[in-house]
């Protein structure tokens, strides 16, 4: 007896697949956590006597002064955030003349996410310019993190915000950060112009004229099924 086909009951309907926000799992704790330093019996180590100088490395010289990166950052006790976030904060205020609260709103990634943006982490939010600056840390290139960032950028884009991701290493490079921020905020990057007077100045007009010509030709084309009518 031939097998009869089992049909889908009419009361069963296909539905769209339910989508869920990506959740970044917490890091897995290692079952045994031994700090290498703990197994060193430091009391058995002898420090150099005061008269000893290792000539191959030159005279012993202390490193003094503030960390150059911290010197570019807002102090921790003023703005709570990671070092790259605090560097950008100070750069925006001191060099780019922005004012927090008026021009941008800062919330450190350490604080979770924004209530008004559905929990999205948007480090520097420029509501008037509709710009978000995201500081990307060392975990940015992990697969889950990249997917999460992509999801957040999409969500912000739906809200009208363009997200610029700035890598941590780029922030530590003073000159590179300068160029990145100048590009974002439409300031001189050394490749602009001091005044436009030449044929290139008419390029936009030429492109527009070409676009109009193409549009007119498409409209005039008899597609046979009414396209362009």
């Amino acid at each position, binding site marked *: 007896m031939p097998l009869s086909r089992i049909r889908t009951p009419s009361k069963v309907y296909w539905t769209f697949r339910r989508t869920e926000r990506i959740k970044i799992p917490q890091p897995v704790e290692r079952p045994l956590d031994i700090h290498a330093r703990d197994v060193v019996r430091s009391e058995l180590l002898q420090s150099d006597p*005061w008269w000893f100088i290792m000539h191959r490395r*030159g*005279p*012993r*010289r*202390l*490193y*003094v*002064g*503030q*960390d*150059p990166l911290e*010197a*570019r950052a807002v102090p921790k006790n003023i703005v709570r955030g990671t070092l790259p976030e605090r560097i950008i904060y100070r750069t925006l205020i001191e*060099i*780019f*003349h*922005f*004012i927090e609260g*008026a*021009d941008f709103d800062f919330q450190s990634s350490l604080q979770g996410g924004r209530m008004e943006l559905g929990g999205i982490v948007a480090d520097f939010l420029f509501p*008037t*310019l509709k710009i978000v600056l995201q500081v990307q840390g060392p975990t940015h290139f992990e697969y889950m993190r990249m997917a999460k960032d992509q999801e957040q950028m999409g969500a912000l884009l739906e809200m009208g915000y363009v997200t610029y991701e700035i890598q941590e290493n780029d922030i530590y490079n*003073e*000159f590179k950060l*300068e*160029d990145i921020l*100048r590009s974002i*905020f*439409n*300031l*001189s*990057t*050394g*490749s*602009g*112009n*001091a*005044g*436009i*007077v*030449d044929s*290139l100045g008419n390029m936009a007009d030429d492109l527009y004229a070409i676009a109009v010509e193409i549009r007119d030709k498409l409209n005039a084309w008899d597609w046979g099924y009414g396209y362009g009518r």
Partner: protein
Amino acid sequence: MAETELGDVVINGTKFRIDLQTWKVRDLADFAPRSSTPGGSVIHSDLLLYQPMLQTDWRHGFGHHWYDDAMGYLATEGRVDTRQPGIAMMYTGSTSMGADTNLLNGFITFNSTLYKFGAGGLSSWTSGTTWANLYNTATVNCALATKTYLFYCGDGQRIQKMTTGGVHTTAGVDANATDYRWLIVHNGYIYAGKDGTNEVYYDSNEDLSQLHGDVAGDTNEILVGGGGIPTIGAIVYASNLYIARQDGLWVLGEDMIARRVLDFTNEINSTNFKSMCVYNGYMIFPVQDVLYQWNGARLSRITPPKVTDTFPYTTYGAFDNLVAIGDFVYCTAYTNESTPVHSLLCFDGTSWTRLADLTPSTGTTTSTPAMGYDPVHNYIVYQAVGGSAGTVYYIPLQARSSYPYAAFMTTGTHSVISSRLDMGYRRVVKSTPSMLVEASNVSSTVYLLVYYSLDGAAWVAWGGTDGTTNKISSAGVTELTNPLGSATVPSIEYKYLKIKVVFVTGTATSSPILEGLTVRFLLRPEVFWGFNFTVVAARDYDMGPHNDNRYPYDVISALRTIRDSKAPVAFIDIYGVSYYGYISSLNESAIERHEYDVGSEPNIEGIAQVNFVEAR
């Protein structure tokens, strides 16, 4: 020498006998600590004894008193452009467009021709020729160009219009259409501010044939604020028309009512809103000697910083002639000195560059009444007036580039002066044997000269022979050594150092390019000493003919008291050299009890190891 009858050393006035075998002295200051400085990247280190401190970018402009910004510097002289990433170079020179002592109110282009207007009326300029006067009945307050007409307003006179064919006729509805201070196009109308009043008239006709000029003829005039303070200008920003008076800024609504949005009543001044421009989404304007940028919601100050590092400090004020061209905002300003210097300043959204000092053909500048942009020729045009002399100049801009046009000055001094380089430690002396200069486009006639100033002293040519030992005429990296030019002293010592690099060219089309400065230095802190010795605490200790009959505890007790001293105590070492400092460590050891001695105190002979630290 110490008084040695009862001891080898003297601490706080008390003499102590020490075991000479235990005497040790050590310098406690680090020989040459490595300091962290902004911009001092380890990748530029030559891994030698000296540390490099380098500057390879000057984009953060002038006004950095101390080296706190890797891209900042103190000031420039003459014509220097530091706006480009990674380089500093000369800025374009000015070319005369003819003498004019009549104070101008501005420049305008119409029908591919440049016009100037002001006390001399209205004149047109054609390249290669002189100015042609077109109207001289009165001072022209303002002008406005549309595609069809050039409108211009003589002071107290009826508004005029000129066609592209050069035909001049009157505009306005009647004989009362006179004496306008400013004209602007906005939202389908041309608005005209009546000179000396707060009245604004408007007309939608292309030829301004219905523009009124008195309240009786036009009941639809706009009154901007009250109090009889006249309007001085208007600007279109973010789709709104803003009208300025000396006491604030008004926005004109769709209902043709002007409402105040910025109030500077308590700072009313003739320099307020003297000029306005829109740059990168902001409106920029001066209020007294402060320059603001406004985004429609909040004000932030962008006033240039000071340009000197000694009192009385030189600052810029009286900002005028704001013009946004390409990537930059240009303006004129002059200094607070007794003989002010008028300069062309440039703002790139972050910082200020002084591109040029604007001087007339003779004398010093007393006024730079007008500056504008000529898009026909791609020029910055300005007038510089000094006493009885006045000249209109242009500075060409380079097409398709933000770099300066290659028409540099072969005379004058053009230099960039670094911030005070203190390496982060102002009070520590540094030593510098050499510095590295990175340059390009240099030759025997196009070159750089390097000078230094130690702790604010006069400029000295590096190497001692100006034009020879401080000359950079080879492209690439040049190490300048022997800063004093001395056969015996190979370095300079200072607490802070300033470097001046002068740009010299004998070819107007070529500028030397400065790409980097690296100062090699050692921090050399003052040395201070630590002493380690063992004091002998024993009674009846013979010292030559002398006998120390102090009980051991008297010695120990004296040392304990000194150890507890909050103030530094005097110390004379075994060679009789005096110091001030503290006993930082005291370790006592008992050696032997002398039972036969039954004095007032137990006679327990002992020693005390003393660490004495010089306090500096």
